[in-house]
C-alpha cells in the first residue's frame, strides 16, 4: 500500500504502479482435457499453444493467425454462438506486448471458453465482426484503449475517447494523470485538467 499512486494535484513522474517481482510467478493452470480441446487440437494442431484451465475456467492460448478461424470453428461446429467480450491486457516488458482475450459462451453447452493470443505492438489482428456482429463496438473499444487496430473492421474509430485524442489510455505506460494537453487546451479552453 506504500507505493500507492494517488491522483494528487501535484504531477508525479509516471512511476510504474506495479513493482515487478524478480522471478514472476506464473498462473497455476492445469491442462484442460476433454472432447472439445481434443477436437480443436486435431483440427488446428500446432496453432494451439495450450489448452488449460484455471479455477475451473477453460482457456486456449493460440497463435494470432488462428484466432479468426478458431472463433469461426467454435461458432459453427461447437455451438459457441455468443461472443461475450473482447479485451486486451498490456504487458509492456514482453516482446509480444498484448494479450488479446476473446470470451465466448455457448448457449447449448452452457459453457464458457476464453481464447487468448499474444500479439506484438503494431500487429493487426483480423477483425471478427464477420462472425459476431457484437465485435464491432468491442473491437473499437480495444482500439481506443490499447491502439490495436483490427484488420477488416468496418468502422474502426475511437469510441469512448474524443476522436482526435492522442495516446491509448489503458496501456501501462500511460500514467493515470496523463492526458492529451493539446486536446484539452483546444477544446475545453483550460490550461490543464488537473
Amino acid at each position, binding site marked *: 500500500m506504500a507505493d500507492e499512486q494517488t491522483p494528487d494535484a501535484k504531477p508525479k513522474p509516471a512511476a510504474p504502479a506495479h513493482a515487478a517481482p524478480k522471478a514472476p510467478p506464473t498462473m497455476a493452470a492445469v491442462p484442460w482435457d476433454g472432447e472439445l480441446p481434443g477436437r480443436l487440437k486435431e483440427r488446428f494442431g500446432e496453432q494451439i499453444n495450450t489448452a488449460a484451465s484455471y479455477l475451473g475456467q477453460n482457456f486456449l492460448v493460440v497463435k494470432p493467425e488462428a484466432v479468426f478461424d478458431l472463433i469461426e470453428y467454435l461458432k459453427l461446429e461447437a455451438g459457441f454462438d455468443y461472443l461475450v467480450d473482447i479485451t486486451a491486457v498490456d504487458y509492456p516488458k514482453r516482446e509480444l506486448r498484448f494479450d488479446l482475450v476473446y470470451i465466448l459462451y455457448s448457449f447449448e453447452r452452457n459453457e464458457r471458453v476464453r481464447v487468448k493470443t499474444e500479439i506484438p505492438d503494431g500487429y493487426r489482428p483480423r477483425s471478427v465482426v464477420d462472425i459476431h456482429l457484437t465485435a464491432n463496438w468491442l473491437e473499437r473499444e480495444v482500439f481506443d484503449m490499447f491502439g490495436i487496430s483490427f484488420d477488416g473492421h468496418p468502422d474502426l474509430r475511437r469510441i469512448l475517447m474524443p476522436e482526435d485524442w492522442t495516446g491509448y489510455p*489503458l496501456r501501462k505506460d500511460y500514467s493515470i494523470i496523463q492526458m492529451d494537453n493539446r486536446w484539452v487546451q483546444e477544446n475545453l479552453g483550460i490550461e490543464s485538467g488537473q
Partner: protein
Amino acid sequence: MAETFLDSSELVLNMGPQHPSTHGVLRVVLRLDGEKVMGTECIIGYLHRGVEKIAENRTYQMFAPYVDRMDYVAAVSNGLGYCLAVEKLLNVEAPPRAQTVRVALTELNRIASHLIWLGTHALDIGAITPLFYTMREREEILNIFEKYCGARLTTHAFRIGGLQYELYDGFEQDVSAFCDMFPARIDEYEELLSGNRIWVDRLTNIGVLNAAQCKQYGVTGPLLRAAGVRWDLRKAQPYSGYENYDFEIPIRENGDTYDRYIVRMQEMRQSVRILRQAIKRIEPGPIMAKVPKVIKPPVGEAYVSIEAPKGELGYYIVSDGSTQPYRVRVRPPSFVNLQALEPMAKGALVADIVAIIGTIDIVLGEVDR
C-alpha cells in the same frame, strides 16, 4: 425549382446528448428519410471516467466503491459481481448468511432498477403518472438500503469475502412488508399501462429483435428473454446460492418493446418471490469469510459474470500477485445492448426511437464507464 422541391436526400438529425429521453448523455445521429429512420449512429463517451484505469491504480478493496458508479441505479449488483470475481481469484466463498443477504439485497436492487426503467420509459412514451408511483415504491427500497448500509444509491454494501455490516433489527420485517405491499402496486402499474391503447399501440411491433439477432449482437438480459430465449445466469450458472431458490424465468415470443415490458414486469414479481424465500433463509452465522487484511490474489485471471438487471455483467480480472489488480475489464450489459439500437431502429419512425432507447434500459454511467 422543381428539383429542390422534390429533393429526397436524407436528413441528418442530431439527438442528444442533452435530450431528456436518451436517459443521460447519449448522442444519437439519425439519418432520416421523411419520418423514417434509415440509420443510427451512437456517439458515446461523454461520461467516460476510465474506471478500468482507476482499478489498476487502486488496491482490491479500494476499487469496490468505484464499481457502484458504473450502473448507478443497480449499484448493489455491480458490487456483487466485483466481489464474486475477486473471491473467485482468492478461491474463497462468502458464508451462507452473507450469501442470503446478498441475494436479498440484489433482488431488491433489481426491482429498484426495473422501477426506474418503467417510470422513465413510460414518461418517454407520454405516460407521466407511473413515474411518480414507481419512484414512491423505489423509495421504500432505498430506505432499506439506507438503513442497512448507510447509503441509498451508491451503496458499497458488500465487501470482498462477505459483508461489512450486520443486518439491522427489523430488516426481515421491512423486506416482508415490502413484499406484501409491492405485488398490488405492480397490479396498479399494469392497470395503468397494460390495457391502455396508447401504450399498447406505441409499443407493439416496435424495435423487434429476434433471438438470432440477439445472439449475433451479444444482447442479454430482458431483451434476450423477450425474444424467447430462456436464459438467465441465475439459472444457467448460479452464483451466490441462487440454485436453491425457486423462481421462474419469464419469457415472451415476439421480442418487441411490449414484450420486454411484460418480461420486466414479470421479473419484478419473480424477484418478490425470491425475496420472500431469502428472508426466511437468513440464518445466524458469520458474515465474513476468512480473507486476509491485505488482499493479494495469486497470479491468475478469472471471468465472473452475474445477471444484472440489464443483462450479463462480467468482470475479467487479471492478477499479478500484488495488492492491485493488473487489469480489470468490465463487460457492461448496457454497452453491448446499446449496439443493437441500429437494427432495432432501422425503418422505425422518429417517435419510436424514444421508445426503443427506453426499452434497451441503458445507463450511460455503465455504457461509458
